[in-house]
């Protein structure tokens, strides 16, 4: 029964030891020479982490941020796409109709009253930013997320907007931002720029 399998076994020879290895001493001297050479090499491979921060690639998937449009409002239109796409169920949005009489919100139908992301539940897969039709949610390259309580790491809308302010101020925008709009609806808006813009979508800046 098992003989069938033996055909797939390859027999290999151990590498033969020469007289140098069998004598041990020359081999030991060689090893010591290598150790000494490395000992007096000044260059180390260690990164001095807290003092010298590593450069994180801009397509890193770190802490989320909620983008603002050019008027400073939250870009999100509360369409629930990200919440639906999220495999970890960490996004919770409560939408509210935009106040029509307020000139500030006059071109919007809906806006997120609350937008909560549980950063501890999130698996940082980036599906939410893939799903977002208006490029409102993005993953930044912030990787050192810490907190003393679990409650601290449940980010609400204001916190996520502050992440946007912080990252756009320090020039740590994700690569997608610099590359223009990537959401499917945004692409469509660009090609159909002759027609009127769909509601809730500002002109690309």
């Amino acid at each position: 029964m098992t003989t069938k399998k033996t055909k797939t076994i390859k027999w290999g020879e151990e590498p033969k030891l020469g007289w140098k290895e069998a004598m041990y001493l020359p081999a030991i001297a060689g090893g010591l020479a290598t150790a000494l050479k490395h000992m007096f090499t000044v260059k180390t491979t260690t990164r001095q982490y807290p003092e010298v921060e590593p450069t994180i690639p801009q397509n890193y998937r770190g802490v989320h941020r909620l983008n603002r449009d050019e008027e400073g409002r939250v870009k999100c239109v509360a369409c629930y796409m990200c919440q639906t796409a999220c495999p970890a169920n960490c996004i919770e949005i409560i939408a509210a109709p935009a106040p029509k009489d307020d000139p500030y919100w006059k071109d919007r139908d809906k806006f997120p009253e609350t937008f909560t992301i549980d950063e501890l539940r999130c698996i940082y897969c980036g599906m939410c930013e893939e799903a977002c039709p208006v490029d409102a949610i993005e993953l930044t390259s912030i990787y050192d997320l810490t907190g003393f309580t679990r409650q601290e790491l449940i980010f609400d809308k204001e916190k996520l907007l502050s992440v946007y302010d912080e990252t756009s101020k320090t020039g740590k925008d994700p690569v997608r931002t610099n590359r223009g709009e990537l959401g499917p609806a945004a692409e469509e808006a660009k090609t159909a720029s002759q027609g009127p813009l769909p509601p809730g979508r500002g002109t690309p800046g």
Partner: protein
Amino acid sequence: MLEYLQQTWPTLWPTLAAIGVILAFVPVLGLYMTFIERKLAAYVQDRVGPNRVGPFGLFQAIADGIKIFLKEQVIPDHVFKFLYFVAPSFSLMTAMFALVVMPFGPVPTDYKEGFRYIVAPGIDIGIMMMIAISSLSAYGIILGGWASNNKYSLYGAIRSCAQFISYEIPLGLSIIGVIAAAGSLNIEQIVANQGGAFWNWNIFWQPLALLVFFTSALAETNRLPFDLPECEQELVGGFHTEYGGIKFVLFFLAEYTHVVTVSFLTALLFFGGWHFPGLTGPVDSSLFGMLLRAFVLVFKVCMVVVFIMLLRWSLPRFRFDQLMGLAWKGLIPLGLLNLLCVAVVLTLDLPKHLLAFTALFLFVGSLISARHLQSTINRPRSEGRAILPEGSI
């Protein structure tokens, strides 16, 4: 009683002082040797090593010490309580006991009263006692393995037992040549015998003895090329699997004490002890001369310690059959050969530097036995064939 104390006080206080020095230095030395070892390992591996606590991480050792003392004492349910506690202390006790006849500074052969850098000066069985005591250190490991009531620990202990027994033979054989040359077992006498110019040091006319001695002494310390008693892959942690906190550290301290002992012995027996070109002849008892000689000795010892640590980071470990093969097929014949040559040279009163050519024997012997070693040491029982996964060749 008081009168007796008063009578013996002039000989008692130097001994007590020396004991105090050893008791104070061994734990500090152990802590700082771990630090130095970590730094050295880091440099060899192109890292920077501990550098957070204090300047250059110098207080890391102290932080480690504090942490170790504050650790919870976990005592597993299944151990033999009494032996479990005795083993680590016995291990350290024997390691420190061997330091009794160890001069850690210059000791004149004509012993006078006063502080003399040694606990027991002028002991005529010196080196013999050292070997006897250091053999006892196997007990600590075996007790630890047995008390752990754990088959892996016991395997580690048994291995270490076999290793100790095997390597004590070449250790003794290599020292006999030195003893025969000095005509004394007294370590101070052996050092004084190398007191002339530096080519009188034992290394220059018994290099083979040094090689055999150093290798087997390294095996006695259970350090890396020979650290078979502890082996993560095969034995979990070896004999100290069940030990934690301060109990583990006692084992560790014993290991480092052994390293220090071995380094001292190497420096004293083969590298001329406290002698140095320009510092030859008998010891003068002026304070400056004493301190200078102590410095020379400690410097030599440090060099040997660094060498041992470097070896740890440049050599792969031995397999168990290779370990045994090295002792029984390699070192014991070489030791006997060396002893024979020393006997011939000393009996016929030949110039003793002829003996340096015994190193040549080593090369010739290795060449002859290389083919034999190939078939026996490297490939024990298998026919030199291994099952390799498909596509690997």
